[in-house]
């Protein structure tokens, strides 16, 4: 009988798996051993030590109530935040510019110090994490912002330091430190190894590519990067109330004509970013290593902070900021007059005033319409913190002898701005109904006024006065847009004394009003700096539109359309928009049908036409238009919102979710998107998701109860009340001059 012997496996076939197993086992042992023996990294040991005494008052994220996080999820040792002075060894010009900038002084300058000490004293140091995420990131990430902290703070003088900005790895578009801080490194090798401790300048010089990898990445040049701090809100944790949006500069840029991401602005402009305006190339007289052709991207970020350079007596920085503010950012135009002679009820409308023939006599009541335009700013004017910045319009009427007959928007002898000035400010109201004029944002309950001019838009200020009987010759009308940082109440409060801080005149307009006959002058075709009349009419129309004076806006847009053939399609869309606001859909439809027929790719016209289609229930046509707009402008939030709505109506919930998701990818706090997500999730039976969205929506939406608080406040402050309504007139008989 033959017994089958087990088949012998060739030795060679056995050897390979045995060796592999042995190797794997060995490797596993080695790994376990190495883990057992490797001491925790210095960062981990540091984080563990800090965590022992750190107050995690706001939950597991140690950096709340800011929106900042770190790549490691925990603290970063202070010595990793290399002092900017070291960077200045090679980056001489960038360092010198930064040193005088608002970033370089973001923590130590006295105005911020006053405010942050107030919150520290009133609420506790833990709450300052909200502020320091953007004013002193190193203080936040080292874990210094907790009671009785032993963390040494040599970085305080650096504020937003070189290494802070250049170590940021990612952003989340939420503002208030909406970024992820990486562990600082001076060199990052090709394999991703990060090197910092002990790295000498010579080692950096020997390996510039690794230094560049450590310091630069595409995100640093994106507007969302700047938006991680130039976007702000007061969260519930700070005010024990609810989310209050403060400002959102990067979002405004995204919606402006300068981003090229939205078809809705009134004008088409060349693309600009934060950097292209605020980091223009500047001479590098100190031979900065990064300079090209003797220039480098400015690290002084000239914008609007005149207070810091004035306080520290840095004339170069002050000059740069003033020059920036004066560089045609805003415009002012004494555009129209309304004349009402005594004993006549009808008003004569004269516009544009410098192109018109008319007569003026003593006793006439005049209303001057002054148009203020946000001409060249990629965000609103003023963009941020309007509660303690001061932008206003000064208007004066002088006789031939230089005597001021009437005035508005002047600085009183005590340095304060006259109360009834036409201004672009936010009035914050506290829970007790008082005026929050010291930027105690944690005590804010509501806004009684929040005036600003959005990018590319306009505002109109109206000044009413009576021509004196006894004057002759010409009256000089002057309008100036002026800007001061800060309000006098705040600077006096901070400095403990009354000091005149600089006021910058950003734009000026003059008109000489003859008693008797006035003759219009034709536009000078050779004057390339003058704003063309069609644009003046259009700006006036925009201002009227934004003040909800739609019939008057229609007239102004009609004039603009008649005067410029190139702009005509846009002006007609503007007119249609005003008709839509008046619910005159047939008139709007006729205009838009004509515009779209002549130019089937005009996204702005297509969008407005879609609004009409939706009103008429022509949903397929509306959707076709919106999809066409989104093909050209995929990040247009208004179109995404409309498409989401259409998807909802069609019960295409997947499509709706996609639309609202795309909106939240741009602005994670878009209240409309969260509301609609709540509704869609309910339809889909996704209860938990719906609950989450409902909670977010409840926090983001306006508190209806706050309105009565704002009204109570305005009743107590009649000047502010006048200013807070869209259409108001400044009666100058109450503020006569000399």
């Amino acid at each position: 009988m033959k017994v089958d012997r087990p088949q012998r496996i060739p030795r060679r076939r056995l050897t390979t798996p045995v060796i592999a197993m042995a190797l794997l086992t060995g490797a596993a042992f080695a790994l376990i051993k190495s883990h057992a023996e490797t001491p925790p990294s210095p960062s981990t040991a540091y984080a563990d030590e800090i965590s022992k005494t750190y107050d995690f008052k706001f939950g597991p994220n140690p950096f709340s109530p800011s929106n900042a996080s770190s790549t490691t999820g925990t603290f970063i040792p202070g010595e990793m935040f290399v002092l900017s002075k070291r960077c200045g060894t090679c980056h001489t010009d960038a360092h010198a510019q930064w040193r005088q900038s608002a970033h370089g002084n973001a923590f130590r300058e006295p105005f911020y110090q006053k405010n942050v000490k107030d919150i520290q004293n009133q609420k506790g140091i833990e709450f300052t994490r909200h502020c320091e995420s953007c004013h002193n990131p190193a203080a936040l990430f080292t874990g210094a912002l907790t009671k009785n902290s032993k963390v040494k703070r040599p970085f305080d003088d650096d504020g937003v330091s070189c290494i802070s900005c250049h170590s940021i790895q990612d952003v989340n578009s939420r503002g208030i430190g909406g970024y992820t801080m990486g562990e600082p490194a001076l060199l990052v090798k090709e394999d991703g190894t990060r090197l910092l401790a002990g790295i000498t300048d010579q080692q950096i010089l020997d390996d510039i590519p690794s230094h560049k990898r450590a310091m630069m990445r595409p995100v640093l040049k994106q507007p969302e990067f700047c938006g991680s701090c130039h976007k702000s809100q007061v969260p519930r944790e700070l005010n024990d109330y609810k989310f209050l949006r403060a400002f959102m500069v990067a979002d405004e840029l995204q919606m402006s004509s300068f981003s090229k991401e939205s078809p809705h602005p009134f004008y088409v402009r060349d693309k600009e970013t934060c950097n292209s305006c605020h980091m223009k190339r500047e001479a590098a007289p100190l031979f900065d290593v990064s300079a090209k052709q003797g220039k480098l991207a400015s690290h002084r970020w000239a914008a609007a902070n005149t207070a810091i350079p004035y306080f520290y007596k840095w004339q170069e920085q002050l000059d740069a900021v003033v020059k920036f503010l004066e560089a045609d950012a805003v415009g002012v135009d004494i555009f129209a007059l309304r004349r009402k002679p005594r004993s006549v009820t009808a008003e004569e409308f004269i516009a544009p005033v410098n192109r018109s023939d008319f007569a003026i006599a003593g006793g006439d009541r005049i209303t001057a319409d002054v148009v203020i335009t946000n001409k060249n700013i990629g965000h609103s004017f003023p963009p941020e913190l309007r509660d303690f910045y001061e932008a206003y319009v000064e208007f004066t009427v002088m006789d031939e002898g230089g005597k001021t007959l009437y005035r508005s928007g002047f600085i009183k002898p005590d340095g304060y701005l006259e109360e009834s000035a036409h201004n672009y400010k936010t009035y914050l109201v506290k829970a007790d109904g008082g005026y929050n004029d010291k930027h105690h944002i944690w005590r804010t309950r509501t806004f009684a006024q929040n005036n600003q001019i959005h990018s590319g838009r306009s505002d109109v200020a109206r000044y009413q006065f009576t021509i004196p009987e006894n004057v002759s010759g010409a009256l000089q009308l002057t309008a100036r847009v002026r800007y001061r940082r800060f309000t006098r109440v705040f600077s006096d409060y901070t400095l403990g004394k009354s000091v005149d801080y600089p006021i910058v005149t950003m734009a000026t307009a003059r008109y000489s009003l003859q008693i008797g006959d006035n003759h219009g002058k034709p536009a000078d075709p050779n004057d390339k700096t003058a704003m063309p009349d069609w644009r003046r009419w259009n700006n006036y129309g925009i201002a009227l539109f934004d003040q909800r004076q739609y019939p008057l806006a229609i007239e102004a847009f009609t004039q603009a359309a008649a005067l410029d053939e190139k702009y005509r399609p846009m002006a007609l869309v503007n007119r249609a928009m005003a008709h839509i606001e008046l619910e005159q859909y047939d008139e709007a439809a006729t205009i838009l049908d004509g515009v779209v027929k002549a130019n089937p790719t005009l996204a702005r016209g297509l969008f407005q036409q879609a609004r009409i289609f939706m009103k008429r229930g022509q949903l397929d046509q509306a959707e076709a238009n919106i999809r066409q707009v989104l093909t050209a402008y995929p990040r247009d939030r208004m179109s995404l919102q409309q498409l989401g709505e259409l998807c909802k109506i069609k019960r295409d919930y997947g499509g709706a979710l996609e639309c609202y998701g795309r909106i939240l990818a741009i602005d994670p706090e878009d209240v409309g998107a969260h509301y609609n997500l709540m509704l869609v999730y309910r339809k889909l039976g996704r209860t938990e998701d719906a609950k989450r969205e409902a909670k977010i929506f409840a926090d983001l939406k306006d508190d209806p109860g706050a309105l009565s608080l704002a009204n109570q406040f305005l009743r107590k402050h009649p000047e502010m009340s006048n200013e807070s309504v869209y259409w108001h007139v400044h009666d100058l008989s109450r503020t006569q001059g000399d």
Partner: protein
Amino acid sequence: MIRNVLSHIHNRPGLFIIALLLIELTIIGTGIAQRRAANTRRADRVGELFRNNCARCHGADGRGKTPTGELFKAPDFTDADWWQQNAKITSTRSLAGIVSRGKGGMPAFGKKLKRSDITALVNHMRRFRPAK
């Protein structure tokens, strides 16, 4: 047509010679302009290299009168005595070695810059030396 041209040349040889001369001058002129442009580009590039890597300490004028230059006692390249007293290290080869490997407070640029750039920088630096 060629026959016509040849006939013209035969009839008016003086004119033909003048035309040839003009063409030659144009070609020579273009060549000179191109060479000048190339030289200017080269000089611009060396100037840029010097500004970005050396001038922070040595100054744009080579005098070393900058904050870092004074800190590290950078020499004055416009000083004839300095060139004379340091004759041992001012050969092109020696200076290129210093730029490459560093000296005292001066870092080494050997890994950052190409050898040809270093040579160009040394030549650029020599221009600060006063004429004898």
